[in-house]
């Protein structure tokens, strides 16, 4: 049995009703303690409204070596970007 606690990735939703954002990681013996630790480590300055934690081993990540096939094809397809529309200022951030 490993003596290290598992690694958890922490996501916090800030004050402004935005989506949860990755803020960092920490170690904890279980999910409940991970939430508590996240509260203590990452919300000391009133940053959070909601905390998600997920054990890092459950995250499937894309491989950096596949950057070419994964992302490059979209670079040349400008028509996919809605840059040709004038967006009224009232709409705000999209």
């Amino acid at each position: 049995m490993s003596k290290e606690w598992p690694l958890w990735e922490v996501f916090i939703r800030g004050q402004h009703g935005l989506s949860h954002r990755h803020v960092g990681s920490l170690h904890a013996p279980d999910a409940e303690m991970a939430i508590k630790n996240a509260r203590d480590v990452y919300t000391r300055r009133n940053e959070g409204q909601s905390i998600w934690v997920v054990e890092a081993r459950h995250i499937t990540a894309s491989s950096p070596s596949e950057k070419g096939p994964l992302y490059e094809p979209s670079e040349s397809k400008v028509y996919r970007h809605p840059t040709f529309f004038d967006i009224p200022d009232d709409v705000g951030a999209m």
Partner: protein
Amino acid sequence: MNTLHEFALRMGDNVLVLGHRVSEWCGHAPVLEEDIALANSALDLIGQTQLWLGLAADAEGSGKSADDLAFLRDAWDFRNALLCELPNGDFGQTLMRQYLFDAWHLIMLGKLTSSSEERVAEIADKAIKEVSYHVERSRDTVIGLGDGTEESHARVQAALDYLYPYVGEFFVSDKVDEAAARAGIAPRLEDLRGAYDLAVAETMSEATLKLPESEFAHKGGRTGSMHTEHLGHMLTQMQWLQRAYPGATW
């Protein structure tokens, strides 16, 4: 006897002394996450100290500040329960001490939110949110260590055996407590015992720990008649700056 002053002093000295004790872990806890969590708890307790000792100073009406009370009194003037001044020991002992205190603190503050004294109720109202979290954390950790490995179990059981005789002091009234209860400032201390025993028994059973059977209780901290040898040593650390450089500010 100035009941409000004495009462606020007892509440304030508990959190001052325990807060300082917990702060001694800063930079030394077994893992980073616990280090930060302990420092947060310590800061919460010191924040509560400012409120209670501020009230104690105002009630005394001698123009002293919360800082004067914290840094310029000697051991015999302190009114904290002995449990709060006991040394940190290992991590398990620190968390056991924290749980035994938090469990009482939560029940006490719950009663104080309906104190007849407005400022007492206000302080309790603010502190109880912090303390609800403290007890959740210390309870989980005590359970985790008790129901953990053979070594962690043995260590927190030893901590419980050592600390439990200091619990009784929280429930024994003297003249100050009786006057505070009569004035509606605070509950009768004896009345809190039932809820406390229930909560602690449940936690210890979940933690697979055995509560000592002896009813023996150390006392003398809350009345100031006899502190342990540990308080004086702690104060030399805590107060040295104001002693060496009287009136220093930054």
